[in-house]
């Protein structure tokens, strides 16, 4: 936790400023929305966290979100398949995509950036071609299935605030990921692979399998995320659904203290990073800053935040060293 003070600081500052100067930030409805958005994006960011942990990168995540998000209503509505077939097939498909990435990266030793960039183009292209650029949606059907994402769970003691249903997969996934990374042999090995691949290989760690696994996990979570996103939003256009989500996810992970050089991942950091980004976007609307300024404000706040974080960290380190002297 200690290393997240800086990020927590940014998060709280943004919250406080918005609560003070914006409208209705602390209403149940808004908080529910924020939790929902954070949960959805966190699932993507968690996935990319694994890949970043191995020192790789996955740029195709947004396109996987798109492909899955388009495929689900396409299969359900256009082709009339049963949800019991669609959900497993779509998830298995995303896992296969990840497997493809992993094998190309570990067996053919292609650069992750290149492989997943091709994926970014390819999966979106497939989604567009499959549907003839037609937007896909549930057209008001499948309300029950969609309640996986849009449902709100009443909490005892709280009236207005009901917990968005997506928090449940998030909590489960985040807990599993955190336990996996810190408590299991495989998690430790995954991070070791990220911090020095050849040392890991010399330690008898099956690095290729772990890296492949990370890409599978990432695409699988992107697929799951894509499904939840489409359940939440209700419809999607192949040409822009999930655009830039890979950047949001990677940014959240990096903000949350994952190093792109690999070897360190923090689940708490990832969720906190995602929450910060979401609150920032929300606060721009609530402060009434206008959508033109959205990008500029997010960029500026993030930059100021990470710079301040770094300065505080330095000052702290300098103090420690001086104390070591005394």
């Amino acid at each position, binding site marked *: 936790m200690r290393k997240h003070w800086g990020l927590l600081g940014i998060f709280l500052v943004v919250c406080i400023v918005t609560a003070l100067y*914006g*409208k*209705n*930030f602390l*209403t149940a*409805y*808004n908080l529910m*929305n924020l939790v929902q*958005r954070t949960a959805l994006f966190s699932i993507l960011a968690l996935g990319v966290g694994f890949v970043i942990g191995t020192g790789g990168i996955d740029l195709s995540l947004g396109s996987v979100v798109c492909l899955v998000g388009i495929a689900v209503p396409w299969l359900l509505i256009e082709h009339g398949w049963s949800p019991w077939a669609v959900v497993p097939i779509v998830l298995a498909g995303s896992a296969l995509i990840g497997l493809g990435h992993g094998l190309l990266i570990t067996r053919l030793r292609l650069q992750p950036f290149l492989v997943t960039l091709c994926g970014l183009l390819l999966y979106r292209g497939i989604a567009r071609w499959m549907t*003839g*650029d*037609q*937007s*896909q*949606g*549930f*057209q*008001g059907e499948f309300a029950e299935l969609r309640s996986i994402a*849009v449902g709100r769970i009443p909490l005892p003691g709280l009236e207005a605030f009901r917990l968005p249903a997506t928090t449940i997969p998030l909590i489960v996934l985040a807990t599993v990921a955190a336990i996996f990374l810190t408590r299991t042999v495989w998690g430790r090995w995954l991070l070791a692979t990220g911090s020095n691949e050849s040392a890991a290989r010399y330690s008898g760690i099956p690095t290729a399998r772990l890296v492949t696994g990370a890409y599978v996990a990432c695409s699988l979570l992107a697929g799951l995320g894509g499904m939840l*996103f489409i359940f939440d*939003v*209700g*419809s*999607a*256009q*192949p*040409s*822009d*659904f999930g*655009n*830039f989500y890979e950047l949001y996810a990677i940014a959240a992970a990096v903000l949350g203290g994952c190093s792109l050089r690999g070897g360190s991942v923090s689940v708490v950091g990832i969720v906190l990073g995602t929450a910060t980004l979401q609150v920032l*976007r*929300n606060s721009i*609307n*609530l402060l*009434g800053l*206008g*959508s*033109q300024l*959205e990008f500029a404000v997010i960029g500026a706040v993030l930059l100021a935040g990470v710079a301040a974080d770094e300065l505080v960290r330095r000052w702290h380190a300098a103090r420690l060293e001086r104390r070591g002297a005394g």
Partner: protein
Amino acid sequence: ADLVAAQKERIAGYAKQPMKSPHLSFVSNGVADFWTIAKAGSLAAGKDLGCEVTVVFPGAGLSDQKRMLEDLVIRGIDGVSVSPIDPKNQMEVLNQVAEQSLLITNDSDAPGSARLCYIGMDNYLAGRQCGELARKGLPGGGEVAIFIGRLEQDNAKRRWQGFVDGLLGRSTDAERRDDHTKPFTEGGYTIVGTWTDSFDRAKAKANIEDVMTRHPKLALVTGLFEYNSVLAVEVFRQAGRAGQIKIAAFDEGADVLVGIREGIVLGTVVQDPYGYGYESIKLLHALTQGKLDAIPKDGVMNIPARTITKDNVDTFWSDLKAKLAAGKAAK
């Protein structure tokens, strides 16, 4: 239906106690000059009527629009005029807005939702106007290429179909659907294809260039989104073929208007975005004052498209400039 009733009930309430300075909002379906003019109209109306107006432009498609609508509701907005990107699939969020606030649509309608009124034109008919313009400019038939930013949204599809029907001189039938992915020939006209670019201008330009390469006999192109027409003018100028390949344009890009003047563009079909903005806010304001009868009977306020040709381009342009200046002043 209950939501419509509930809104009307609220409006009836306002009749007794009109809102002092209602907070109204105008939501576009993307970012474009078109919307900036609409913004000018909205803000001008806000100034004239003394109410607060928030204009938001979702830059990243459906999910972005959804998020912005939700956030507006949270801010406690009193009335919203929105151009839904994919109305069939956006019922929930639209109704969510209607639950808390007054909802009307502009530019692209959402039939079946709880919207009180639609302000705009029929994109199919506007497309037809453009198609007819093209037919007149190219009476003997020939190869035609269509460029459009993207085809997913409903108004784009209708506009596209309208253009095709107008060009081919078919009957008016907004429900007709041709396959835009394949070239086809009818009555001497060959539609060689439809190209989209997802708003990347360099790509849009490259598309026009490449189509000229592939189809040397191209006789006419149309750009159904504003910048598509502008870029067609640009490309033909650069290639030294301005005037040889005819252009039937859409919207009021400056280069298009210049091109009409010079005679290298047949003409352009313009909507009245300023009117969309102005009328949206005016209507919403009237509703917050309890004037239920401001809503037309069939729930549609038609602001028809106009065809601008060499004859009326000058008056149109000076009028447009005045409106834009007014919009700036309102800011």
